[in-house]
């Protein structure tokens, strides 16, 4: 664990030193500005719109940040040649993978927490409020979903360069989020092999919609059952583990040769 923490620590220091954290602040400022500017549209008194927009922004920015961070950690170790000094230590490839994923996910958790806090402050300033328990549940589910996204990003980056891995992760997670909940409706009109294929996709890919409590927060429906929440978080943990396992399978026998850098 200590080795994985050390590797995650490198990710943190890199984010801070390479000014990546400033991108986060710019995104946060953009989020706040967009919520404040709702006055211009005449929606100033309707805190529900502020909540909706704030949470939507938190989801979008969290998604972008997670992918951009997670897909580049492994490829850049290779391009700058530091993978050789890292693997020459008593560090297994599994520890490298999980350490990188931990680093990326922990950075994203802090970023998303700041997005939620910013949204909460603006909603309070607008005279509205969030149910604290529901907000906590929404945050927990949100970061669990991002753990899966980070694992998918890391998995693709074990064999692809960062650009290709980012594109694939955007496509896979984006389409999964939008299309997967619609598969049951599509199944009604399909038969035979197509039904099997659709069902296989339905069960194999992560159901990100389960982690989205935005409507519950915006409409004030109150907290979800902790039992259901725990089950969804367990599902998210298993999905994260599954994608990290796939990442390890792709990474454990990968050849690293200095000749590749020339």
């Amino acid at each position, binding site marked *: 664990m200590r080795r994985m923490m050390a590797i995650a620590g490198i990710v943190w220091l*890199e984010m801070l030193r390479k000014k990546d954290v400033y991108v986060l602040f710019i995104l946060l400022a953009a989020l706040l500005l967009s919520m404040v500017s709702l006055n211009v549209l005449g929606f100033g008194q309707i805190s529900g719109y502020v909540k909706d927009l704030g949470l939507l922004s938190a989801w979008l920015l969290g998604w972008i940040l997670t992918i951009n961070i997670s897909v580049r950690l492994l490829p850049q170790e290779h391009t700058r040649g530091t993978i*050789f000094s890292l693997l020459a230590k008593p560090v297994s490839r599994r520890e490298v993978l999980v350490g990188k994923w931990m680093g990326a996910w922990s950075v994203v958790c802090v970023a998303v927490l700041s997005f939620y806090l910013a949204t909460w402050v603006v909603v309070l300033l607008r005279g509205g409020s969030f149910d604290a328990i529901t907000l906590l549940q929404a945050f927990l589910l949100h970061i669990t979903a991002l753990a899966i996204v980070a694992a998918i990003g890391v998995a693709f980056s074990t064999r692809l360069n960062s650009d290709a891995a980012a594109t694939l992760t955007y496509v896979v997670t984006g389409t999964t989020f939008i299309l997967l909940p619609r598969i049951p409706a599509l199944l009604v009109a399909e038969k035979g092999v197509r039904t099997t294929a659709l069902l296989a996709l339905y069960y194999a890919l992560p159901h990100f919609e389960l982690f989205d409590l935005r409507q519950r927060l915006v409409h004030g429906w109150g907290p979800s059952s902790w039992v259901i929440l725990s089950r969804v978080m367990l599902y998210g943990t298993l999905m994260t583990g599954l994608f990290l396992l796939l990442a390890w399978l792709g990474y454990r026998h990968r050849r690293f040769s200095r000749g590749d850098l020339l």
Partner: protein
Amino acid sequence: MTAAIRTRGLGVTFPSRQGAVRALHNLDLTVEPGTVFGFLGPNGAGKTTAIQVLLGFIQATTGTAALFGEPVTESIARERIGYLTENPDTYTFLSGRELLTMTGRLFRMSGRQIRLRTGQLLEETGLTAVADRRIAGYSRGMRQRICMAQALMNDPDLLILDEPTGGLDPLGRMEVRRLIAARRAAGKTVFFSSHELSEVELVCDRVAILVGGELAAEGRVDELIRPGESLERYFIELATSKNRGKEQR
């Protein structure tokens, strides 16, 4: 006593569009603890491939390799080794001290051990004054020295040097020679791959010469060369005759 390095029938074949490329063939090598071992060969002889197998960067196609009796495929095999190349590739956004601290954590050293060893190595490499400055601002020589300190963080029983003097000025080379001498004096093993034959002749107890991926000669330097002959001359004759033999076949 367990050999520091032991390979048996080690072979590596790379797949390519023109057919498989045999980089290493049937390499049997034993490096006893406490020796300075020179690993020589012309370009493309397979030296770096062999080192990459020893460090677990690539997997052998055939044969076995072990470091202090542990198979190289297990990360525990790298507990007692240090590794240094001619390329001072490192995390330039870290300071020298942070790099050594991170390295200590990877070796599961305690906080106190890390502080002590870091101070000692920074002192030895003459980097104490710039220890808290980011490596991005270091000169090439300073980067080489911080990488050297990183390779010595765990006080390794086996130090693997892959062409460490390539691209270094005379002062840098002297630094590497001093390092090898210090490791020898401490009873540690050094496995040293190089093109600089005069360098090898000066510091190595034993040498192995690879040609075309195969072991062409192995032994003490004074056993391999005739009196008055240089290692360089022996090396050139051996490499030429082996290559000629291959072409005739």
